[in-house]
């Protein structure tokens, strides 16, 4: 933990040295991610509800999913660059240092510029808060923390996959960036099979969909069991355990490229 903070702080200071560049990257990460929100706004100029959810409710889903992802991406997202490090041979140096390679990878090039994405999601979430009743507001921080854990686990699984598929790191994007795109809309717009898949296989439904059904007081459009709404912490723990195992297995299997 201390190692992580030290490394992250060092990298953040390094990236803030070039002030103009730093400011440009914060603003551009804000703007690029805001495009999705603008798209939702444009969609709602044509309809009043999408998949049975109002604009504010969709913004709540977008905000919680986006904020969880932005935090996971800022804190651990760098792990997705594993294949670059393997190919360049720089991963080998990490292995001989007295700090866990996971921590080194996560903190490597710590991108404080990703604050842009964070700010964008936080603003949308803030605007959506009037739909949250006081008595159920306690769930919001819980779901965000669980979301961060789930996305971090997905990032880690993607990185573990890169131990095997060094040449195809983009495969993981389908689950990480695809995952956050999925959680930005109500799952009721997607097909039944897809929703069951992200409930029982890759548990992205627990990032925000299931807990949000509780917060917004909605029946499950697919008629899944009510207790699932409170299962996010369990899903997050299970997926983290799987990710930790995969990461370790990958690390054990790793053979240097030899350069």
């Amino acid at each position, binding site marked *: 933990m201390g190692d992580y903070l030290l490394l992250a702080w060092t990298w953040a200071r390094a990236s803030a040295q070039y002030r103009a560049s730093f400011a440009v990257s914060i603003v551009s990460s804000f703007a*690029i991610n805001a495009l999705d929100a603008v798209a939702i706004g444009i969609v709602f*100029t*044509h309809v009043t509800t999408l*998949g049975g959810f109002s604009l504010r409710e969709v913004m709540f889903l977008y905000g919680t999913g986006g904020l969880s992802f932005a935090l996971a991406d800022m804190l651990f997202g760098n792990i997705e660059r594993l294949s670059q490090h393997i190919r360049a041979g720089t991963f080998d140096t990490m292995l001989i240092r007295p700090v866990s390679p996971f921590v080194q990878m996560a903190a490597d090039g710590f991108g404080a510029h990703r604050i842009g994405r964070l700010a964008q999601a936080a603003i949308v979430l803030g605007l959506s808060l009037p739909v949250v009743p006081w008595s159920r507001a306690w769930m919001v921080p819980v779901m965000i923390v669980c979301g961060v854990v789930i996305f971090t686990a997905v990032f880690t699984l993607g990185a573990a996959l890169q131990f095997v598929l060094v040449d195809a790191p983009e495969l993981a994007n389908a689950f990480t960036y695809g995952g956050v795109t*999925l959680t930005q*809309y109500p799952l009721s717009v997607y097909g039944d099979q*897809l929703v069951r898949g992200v409930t029982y296989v890759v548990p992205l439904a627990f990032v925000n969909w299931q807990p949000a059904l509780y917060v917004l007081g909605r029946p499950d459009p697919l008629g899944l069991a009510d207790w699932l709404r409170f299962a996010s912490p369990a899903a997050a723990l299970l997926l983290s355990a799987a990710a930790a195992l995969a990461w370790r297995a990958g690390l054990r299997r790793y053979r240097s490229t030899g350069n």
Partner: protein
Amino acid sequence: MADFVLYLRLFQYGFRRHSTYLAAALAGAFTNTVFGVLRAYVLIALWQARPGLAGYTLTEAVTFCFLTQGFIGPMQVFGRGLSFGDRIRSGDIAFDLVRPAPLLLWSLSEDLGRAAYLTIARSLPPAIAGAVMFTLAGPASPWFVLSFVLGIVVSFGWRYLVTLAACWTTDDRGTHTLSALLTMFFSGMVLPLGLFPGWLRTVAESSPFAAMVQVPADVWLGAEAAWSTLGFQLLWALALLGLGALLTAAARRKVVVQGG
């Protein structure tokens, strides 16, 4: 004739250079497909609520989605610059500017080679997967092929300007992000331009970005007369390439070779 052989060879090199990374291209195709499926469901929900929106039927809207996912690779919708960007940073661009073959045509041939490869590796898989999972509309007009190529040329013309701008700016990240932002939003990649409100729609539809994604997709769907849309694309292609030639000449005067 000799010129033609040179450019043909550069085209082949562009093709071959990218074909080395087959696994990467297939991974990209998979990701493009996943995003295509997610976008398709959102559009389906929208079109079920408002059939006939933007002049598309539901099938056409889903077709639009998978066509545009297929354009990401060849048209470089995420705004990635051309490969000589690195050479501007290192200073090697000075050699490229004095070669007997003009930089513009040189990199155009290479980029067309790249696009040809990515069409096979990154455009066909999402389109085929989309056709298996959903009902898609077939091409309405044989002019689509020409429109597709023109879309790539317009995209090249734009990226050439963005890349060459690095001769004047010290940090090219800002311009690249701005380019990615404009291209994604105004091309129709985020949403079909027909959904945009009033003036924003007018601006987007007359921009060069529309010529990269929205127009070729509309030619496929037969949404508009082919000759006027092709003319629109041709106009933008010529304008951007012309600007590119002017900017290259300016860069030639600007670049100072520091002895050595």
